[in-house]
């Protein structure tokens, strides 16, 4: 594979993208999970699908590449994130309602666009489940820019985002512009989703944001450690998932997510075994 990697540009692009999203998806995912917004990623990914379908439709009807599906997906994702924020303010007592509204809206739009184009070919399949060969050089550049934006914003607003996640009331009293920061955060989420879709696909992108965090939260002390472990889990699953997906000719979305679930189960079981051993040792000592 290494020789193929050197030989074929599309493989290099895919692996570089994989390495990048293996960092940014769990990084942002850590905030998404502790803010109990895990399902928002799902909602936004389905809106992104509508955007991609729109882009593919344009491509098919006009024959020109005015807006590539990547950018139309990104645009829809950002618009979706703004609507999620608005809806959460309308339903302050039922904030999770924003999720099914946006999610079903996304799927509905996708169905309409897809049928208007009389169905799509393998391209759409790649967008749904990810692909090892779908990242163009242009996409890669956009993803690098997204990664730089995401990392810079998180670096600069880390303490505000952290306080807002832990204790929103305290954040407001402190003088933090909660609404603005929240808005920035949700737009970042939209960006990460758009960047990740090429590799893991629409249906599984939220898994890459939440599963590494689910595993790391079991063993980490504190929030920074949670982020670091989540990135290690995410990166391991992405690299192994891409390699195995390539050899087994399975869309990498499937292999990456199953690896993440395997890592999650291993972590939970290992932790339980260690705890049992510790308490047995303790009982032997005291008993």
């Amino acid at each position, binding site marked *: 594979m290494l020789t193929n990697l050197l030989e074929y540009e599309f493989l290099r692009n895919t692996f570089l993208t994989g390495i990048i999203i293996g960092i940014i998806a769990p990084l942002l995912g850590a905030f998404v999970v*502790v803010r*109990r917004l895990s399902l928002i990623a799902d909602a936004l990914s389905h809106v992104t699908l509508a955007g991609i379908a729109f882009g593919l439709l344009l491509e098919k009807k006009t024959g020109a590449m005015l807006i590539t599906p990547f950018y139309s997906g990104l645009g829809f994702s950002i618009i979706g994130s703004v609507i999620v924020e608005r809806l959460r303010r309308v339903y302050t007592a039922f904030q999770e309602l924003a999720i099914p509204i946006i999610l079903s809206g996304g799927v509905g739009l996708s169905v309409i666009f897809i049928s208007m184009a009389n169905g799509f070919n393998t391209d759409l399949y790649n967008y749904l489940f990810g692909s090892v060969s779908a990242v163009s050089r242009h996409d890669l550049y956009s993803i690098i820019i997204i990664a730089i934006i995401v990392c810079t914003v998180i670096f*600069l*607003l880390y*303490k*505000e985002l*952290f*306080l807002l*996640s*832990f*204790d929103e*009331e*305290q*954040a*407001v*009293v*402190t*003088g*933090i512009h909660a609404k603005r920061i929240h808005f920035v955060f949700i737009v970042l989420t939209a960006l990460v989703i758009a960047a990740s879709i090429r590799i893991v696909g629409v249906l599984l992108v939220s898994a890459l944001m939440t599963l590494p965090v689910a595993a790391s*939260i079991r063993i*980490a*002390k*504190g*929030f*920074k*450690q*949670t982020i670091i472990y989540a990135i290690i889990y995410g990166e391991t699953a992405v690299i192994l998932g891409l390699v195995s997906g390539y050899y087994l000719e399975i869309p990498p979305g499937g292999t990456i997510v199953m690896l993440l679930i395997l890592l999650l189960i291993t972590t939970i079981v290992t932790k339980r075994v260690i705890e049992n051993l510790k308490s047995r040792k303790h009982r032997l000592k005291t008993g």
Partner: protein
Amino acid sequence: MSKPIVEMKNVSFHYGDRQALSDVNFIINEGDFIGLVGPNGGGKTTLIKLLLGMEKQTNGTIQLFGQPIHKFKEKNKLSYVSQKANTFNRGFPATVEEVVTMGLTAKLGYFRRLSRQHKKRIYEAVEKVGMTGYLSENIGELSGGQQQRIFIARALVSNPQLIILDEPTVGVDAENVEKFFELLHELNKQNITLLLITHDIGTMTHHASRVACLNKTLHFHGNPNEFQTLSKDQLSDFYGHPLNLVTHEH
């Protein structure tokens, strides 16, 4: 004569049609330790929300540290320990050190990060509340009383002159409530002004320098001894209903 830190003059507040506060005149001087008591729905939390800038008074004026409240920007002079400190998500992955660091957010401002001096301040604040050995523990793994101490450390770390506490001892057992008040007393001696909402009237009167009783308006504002000499009928009047006052004999 010590300086007034908070001055409320003829302050009223309405939630829609419902009047929560009416014509409140209230002064907090530097170095005070004020226990704010009163019935539920009597406006205690509303009063605090006004001071914290979370709500705006309908009528009257409020001055903080000599400035009109809408112009007051030095948020780090004032810290807040909310009731919510008891109800945060215990599974949240944050160490004691990370929680206390949050207290510096206002002081640092946007885009700035911790210096070594800030780190030192964090360790000092944790030491002050007697929790030094727990810096790298997850906050959710501590007991209720210990968590409360960490939230005090978070309030202390920005070096505030005034700390406002909204029923911080809810859910903390009796022994730890006493210890908690001793800690507050200690902080007050170091010239930190305290405003404390509490239902623990007995313990509070032993430690506070003044008691304020609020039921829509301020019914009593004086020293704890006077408060204790009030007859049951007078207190019931303040509260608007008969009151069983539990006092701790010491």
